[in-house]
């Protein structure tokens, strides 16, 4: 057998077809993922222990970054803002989405149209949503100013410029774009509930609220709890809307961990410190996943 034939034979052989070819097909995307995500993630563990500007050599300083972080008032402010953010996103969009999804599940005519339109803001780029709403909330020209002209005062305030209202205003804007997504998820889960359950609830004389409480909520419980976990994680990672609308201002009133990290890394060139912040943020995510895993083991049906 010539060399060439040997090679051709090998390519048609069992080892190549069953073991090597399948991995060759996976390899390109695996390499890209390793290069972009896993390598730098591992790097973050090391750099979080260093004093590093992001360029050149990094000085190993042990756990100093984490010690600094604990005492950093900006970090504490950002962290407590993230907690407020979580509290907002774990309640407001849930209530809105649950109410509207259950009402939408009860109608036939126009259901598809309502679903698509309420979902629509979710597909808009964040820059557009932010720009639309910063105009609408403009104290001299926006909704509040027009209401004041009609004789309804109190809304013509600089919601985004006032430290007392800025964080919730940004959350409101982010939620305008987000809650329709949650609504569609809940709606899909509700449509999987067997109609027989509703029928027997009716036979038992349940009113609409009792139906909602005893059939709908238990029926979508897995989705509800899963989204609760995901939103708890996401709310620690918020960046776009805060950066676009306020960049953490005024005076740090809307600073969150994401914007804080961004400033440390790319404005102050404290890349080592920023890595430590990123690691801390990821730690919260792991903590939340761990908590849900723990509750599931304790017999929660998640």
């Amino acid at each position: 057998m010539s060399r060439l034939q040997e090679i051709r034979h090998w390519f048609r052989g069992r080892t190549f077809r069953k073991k090597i070819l399948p991995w060759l097909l996976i390899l390109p995307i695996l390499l890209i993922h390793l290069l972009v995500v896993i390598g730098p993630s591992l790097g973050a563990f090391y750099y979080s222990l260093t004093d590093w500007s992001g360029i050149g050599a990094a000085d190993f300083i042990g756990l100093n970054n984490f010690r600094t972080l604990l005492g950093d008032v900006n970090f504490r402010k950002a962290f407590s803002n993230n907690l407020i953010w979580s509290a907002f996103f774990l309640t407001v969009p849930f209530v809105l989405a649950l109410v509207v999804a259950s009402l939408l599940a009860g109608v036939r005519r126009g259901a598809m149209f309502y679903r698509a339109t309420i979902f629509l803001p979710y597909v808009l780029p964040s820059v557009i949503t932010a720009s639309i709403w910063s105009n609408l909330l403009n104290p001299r020209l926006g909704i509040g100013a027009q209401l004041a002209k009609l004789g309804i005062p109190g809304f013509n305030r600089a919601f985004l410029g006032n430290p007392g209202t800025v964080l919730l205003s940004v959350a409101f804007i982010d939620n305008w774009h987000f809650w329709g997504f949650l609504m569609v998820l809940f709606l899909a889960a509700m449509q999987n509930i067997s109609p027989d359950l509703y029928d027997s609830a009716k036979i038992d004389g349940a009113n609409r609220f009792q139906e909602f409480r005893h059939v709908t909520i238990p029926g979508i419980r897995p989705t509800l709890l899963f989204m609760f976990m995901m939103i708890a994680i996401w709310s620690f990672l918020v960046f776009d809307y805060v950066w676009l609308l306020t960049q953490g201002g005024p005076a740090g009133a809307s600073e969150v961990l994401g914007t804080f990290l961004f400033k440390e890394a790319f404005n102050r060139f404290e890349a080592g410190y920023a890595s430590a912040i990123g690691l801390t943020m990821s730690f919260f995510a792991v903590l939340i996943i761990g908590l849900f895993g723990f509750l599931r083991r304790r017999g929660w049906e998640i």
Partner: protein
Amino acid sequence: MIKRIFKPKRQSSQVINYVVLTLALLFALGPLVVLGFNSVKSTAEAMANPLGPPSKIHLENYPNAWAEGKLSTTARNSAILVAGTVAGVLVLGGLAAFSLSRLDPPGSNLFMLYMLGGSTLPTFLFLVPLYSLWRILGLVDTLHGLILIYIALNSPFAIFLLRSYMVQIPRDFEDAARVDGAGELQVLTKVILPLAWPGFLTVGLVTALGVWGEFQIALIFVHVPELFPITTSYWYFTTRYSRDWSLTSAAAVMMIAPVLIFFFSLQRQFIEGLTQGGLKA
């Protein structure tokens, strides 16, 4: 069935459903309608009447915004990003999904677990080291550098979704093709692709939408105005022209027009894709 047909419809009680649903609808659409109004007002009218319908239509806002916002450059950049990422995700993710679903590579469960774990890592964990790596590799301020990042971030979702479409295809189809002498590549292109194309469409749409509107990574990795995608350039544009609502609104309408057209024509794929893969923010 019979029970459902004869079940009395509670017509009267649906009124409240429609009232609340319509309020939700207006909440979603209102701001977009105002955006549309402002995009055709004169600058002066947008200031005097910032919420109501326009008294006179100024379509020239559109070419003006196109020029002032440098949309010919930025829309091209974004189109390159979308095309590159979608192509990369579909080809490379498709190959991986094909292998995972049909060729049973040894250790494939481990790889799935790796992808699942990798997809939950927050961007903020690897962002800073990634930026310095990209500097070293000369990939900062390049579109292909950004495309590589987007491919990586979209790949777990793409692989999971494409794999779930491919495993549903009966093995018999594939076996029949093999009996006829088809190789792996032919099995992929002649059997799997035609049957799994809805999966490819969904992944393509979701990826395209994500890249078209992506802000955070573009903000960090591209600083040269000639390479700005629409998102970061629009942000700088609105800060520069913050007092010219007609111009910024017209630019915004042009940016979201393709999104809206695709969304309303392929609604079902969009909503399904975004909710299934919705597990990325």
